[in-house]
């Protein structure tokens, strides 16, 4: 079971290099981290996984973008969540691993239909810590409401969750213990946090039935 930070944005997108962020991640209790962007993938601490984010307005565009060489090389493919119809359709796309930015969508944009499909297809929903850490007031309250809503759907349908710091700097990274405390704000238990932190490993290496090779 690998504890993974499901999304960091190193230099040049942020102010810290991949090596420095993975070094910090290892010190904060992570075994691996998904690096989003075009940064040089060199680790000096935690293991580095490649992540690609697709920000598209339509499913047709997503289907086109998943064929990009950069996306095909990625270990984990993320899609930014959008409207209700888009989310319902995008969780059914085979190449998509994680739906992210759920806090920025409208209420009920990720509904029970999308949740059921996500559970059937093994598509995860990402919970970013950045809105909880950086936002204040009503914006943070809305993010917490959205996460609580996603959590209630997850408990009902059982789709995977991932937790990302969405850090652009070492100053934005948080330890596993701090993540537990932050996730407790919207009702997530310690066991659920541990499962969510280890779900990236299960996404890139899903459980398959044993095959007998003669």
């Amino acid at each position, binding site marked *: 079971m690998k504890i993974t930070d499901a999304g960091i944005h190193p230099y040049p997108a942020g102010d810290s290099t991949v090596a*420095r962020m993975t070094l910090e991640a290892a010190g904060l209790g992570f075994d691996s981290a998904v690096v989003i962007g075009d940064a040089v993938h060199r680790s000096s601490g935690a293991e580095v996984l490649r992540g690609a984010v697709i920000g598209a307005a339509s499913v047709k565009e997503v289907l086109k973008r998943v064929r990009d060489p950069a996306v095909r090389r990625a270990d984990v493919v993320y899609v930014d969540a959008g409207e209700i119809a888009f989310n319902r359709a995008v969780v059914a796309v085979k190449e998509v691993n994680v739906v992210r930015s759920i806090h920025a969508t409208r209420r009920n944009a990720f509904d029970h239909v999308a949740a059921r499909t996500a559970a059937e297809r093994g598509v995860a929903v990402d919970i970013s810590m950045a809105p909880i850490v950086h936002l204040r007031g009503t914006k943070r309250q809305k993010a917490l409401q959205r996460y609580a809503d996603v959590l209630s759907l997850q408990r009902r349908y059982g789709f995977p969750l991932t937790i990302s710091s969405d850090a652009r700097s070492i100053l934005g990274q948080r330890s596993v213990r701090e993540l537990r405390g932050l996730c407790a704000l919207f009702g997530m238990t310690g066991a659920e946090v541990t499962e969510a932190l280890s779900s990236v490993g299960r996404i890139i290496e899903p459980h398959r039935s044993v095959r007998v090779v003669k």
Partner: protein
Amino acid sequence: MRPRPPAMRTKRRYILARILPYGAWVDQKQVYFAVIEAATSLLGDAAVGLAQPAVVFCEGGYVVVRCRRGTEKDIAVALATVTSVADERIALRTVATSGTIHALRRRMKPIRHLSGDEEVKVGETYFAVYRYPRQKVDLVEKGIKHQKSLFFTEADLEER
């Protein structure tokens, strides 16, 4: 005025947090304001009023926050949401919680930069180089106010 007998005093807990970036110099009063703002914003006036958080001291890259016993987890979560002190970007990493400051002082390991006379050019900007243990290198923009910081490793710096 006679002090209260020990059994009737409020039980306290002390939280030790490391200040990042390592070289950041922050004023104790400003840290207090940042902690109170973060805690009030996250937990509300009622909860923070009961928790009674206070910054006991702030030195050597560490800060010790006092609170009432039983509220230390909430305050530690609030510390994780502190992102700046007096317009300077920082992070507070909780190291330990204890009932005495003495026990926390034992956990404080001073982190000093190994050298700081070098200079490096990144893009069009000149940065001062501060090296720290475990191959960590902090680059601080040369200037007087609102300097940009970059966080590299030795290998990153050599590769440039």
